[in-house]
């Protein structure tokens, strides 16, 4: 797998604010890379720099192994923050301008408009679109002329649940074609479902990066429930391998010592005369991990 994008010690200062602070990362071909971080952590600024519309203060970035140019940008489809189109022009004419800029023919326009469900509105001026429709057109614009790399900054912003699900499907489908995707989003659920890699930014710094799967498989929390939670709680506290116990709404979330599995626990409870109505290993979510990473990094900086 070859490297599509590499960023090295990237810095962007806005006066005293360090919007991006010595950020380094690498994106491999075919990966779907999630860019996470709280508001103002530097996601959009980073994407703006690698798309050559924001000037870096220092550092380096390379696309496809060489310095960025208008030619390398033609191979990238991107949305940055808000959809940007000519309000008086129709969807089709707006897309036509893009294909002209990229030096491509107009043949993919109809196809893309169908893909983002705007085909029946293709001749309406952009300014008459709803927020979600504008966002769809932006995604369509990024997909036009079939670029090998996609950069999506908050692509599901303003979409309805159905729209979000469609975009998720679309991203998975596009990723399935071997495209490389860089996705900045606050919907961690989305990132978890579509991304292979992720990086967490905080105050412009990259504080964690890794594989999404690794995070999801590291859980050892077990959910249990029975008809009488009080009794269950009392019984389980007597289980010698118990590490921690937390009472949640309709269940108990417990953690056991590493060597012990659910079989031992269940056997123990049956001996105590308790029948479980629910027993499950909880997959840790990206969200939990994300919050934990941020908490730890804040502790360090204080």
């Amino acid at each position, binding site marked *: 797998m070859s490297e599509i994008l590499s960023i090295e010690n990237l810095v962007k200062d806005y006066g005293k604010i360090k919007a991006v602070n010595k950020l380094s990362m690498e994106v491999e071909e075919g990966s779907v890379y999630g860019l996470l971080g709280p508001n103002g952590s530097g996601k959009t600024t980073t994407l703006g720099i690698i798309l050559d519309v924001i000037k870096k203060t220092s550092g380096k970035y390379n696309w496809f192994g060489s310095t960025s140019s208008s030619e390398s940008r033609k191979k990238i489809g991107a949305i940055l923050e808000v959809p*940007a*189109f000519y309000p008086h022009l129709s969807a089709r*004419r707006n897309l036509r301008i893009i294909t*002209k800029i990229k030096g491509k023919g107009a043949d993919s326009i109809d196809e893309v408009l169908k893909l983002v469900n705007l085909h029946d509105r293709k001749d309406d001026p952009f300014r008459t679109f709803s927020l979600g429709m504008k966002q769809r057109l932006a995604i369509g614009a990024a997909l036009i002329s079939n670029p090998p790399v996609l950069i999506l900054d908050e692509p599901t912003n303003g979409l309805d649940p159905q729209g979000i699900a469609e975009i998720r499907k679309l991203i998975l489908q596009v990723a399935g074609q071997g495209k490389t995707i860089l996705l900045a989003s606050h919907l961690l659920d989305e990132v978890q479902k579509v991304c292979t890699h992720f990086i967490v930014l905080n105050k412009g710094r990259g504080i964690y990066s890794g594989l999404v799967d690794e995070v999801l498989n590291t859980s050892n929390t077990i959910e249990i429930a029975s008809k009488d939670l009080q009794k269950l709680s009392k019984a389980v506290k007597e289980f010698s391998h118990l590490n921690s116990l937390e009472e949640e709404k309709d269940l108990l979330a417990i953690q056991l010592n590493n060597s012990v599995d659910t079989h031992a626990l269940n056997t123990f409870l049956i001996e105590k005369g308790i029948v479980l109505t629910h027993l499950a290993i909880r997959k840790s979510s990206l969200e939990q991990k994300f919050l934990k990473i941020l908490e730890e990094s804040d502790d360090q900086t204080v």
Partner: protein
Amino acid sequence: MIRLFEIEWLKLKNYKVFWALIITYFLGLILVLSSGMFLMQFFKYKGAEFKGIDPTIIPLYDFPDVWQNMTYIATFFKIILAFIVIISVTNEIGYRTMRQNVIEGLSKWEFLLSKLSLVFMLSFAATVFLFFEGLITGLIYSTVKDLRSIFSELEFLAGYFLEVFTFLSFALLIGILLKRAGFAIVLIFMYTLIFEPFLTINLEHNPHIYESLKSISPYLPIRSLNNLISVPFQRYVFMEIQDFIAWKDVFIVLGWLIIYQFSIYKLLDKRDI
């Protein structure tokens, strides 16, 4: 370059404001430039006389004088073309389409060239239009119609092109600098029609101004443009006029043109877009 103009054309050809301004410009020019004779008749009817001359026999449209007369009048309309340039570029900034164009694969330099192609096309169209307008009205009214007279003093058309091209480059710079159409239009309007003319009048005629300061007035941005084509009409009251374009004025204007282009480039180059 053709590709860049095509892109610009796609952006403009369905834009109503653009067509409204284009129509205002050309209709206004046709109306004013064609009605010289009626105007003179009107003056005569009202009993006006110019130093004992019957106004209707003033040969406004005689070749080759028609070229200087027309280009001189037409330069007053260039501000409408400047509005087109300003609106076109401030829209791109406001709608963030300039940024999106760069993301999609235009370089900042190409974006600038696409706007310059608009500036060029507007200046070129205005010049070609003036050529035909002058030719037609001249053929109708002129008492001399030999080819030599018709095609002499065409340098005024070249001067007109340079004047419009430079002024529109100035408008492009103001638009990119101020980013907002309303602001830029008010500023260029005030500066061109009020601020600099009054400054020039003061420089040239106010007795309290130092002699050494007076000499800068031909170098001011708008004054130097106006100097390219001098006022032609005193010739009809037997006064001396400058009936040619002076190289000195051309060089001053070219100097400004280079300054505008360079500033636009620098501004875009170092700005986050």
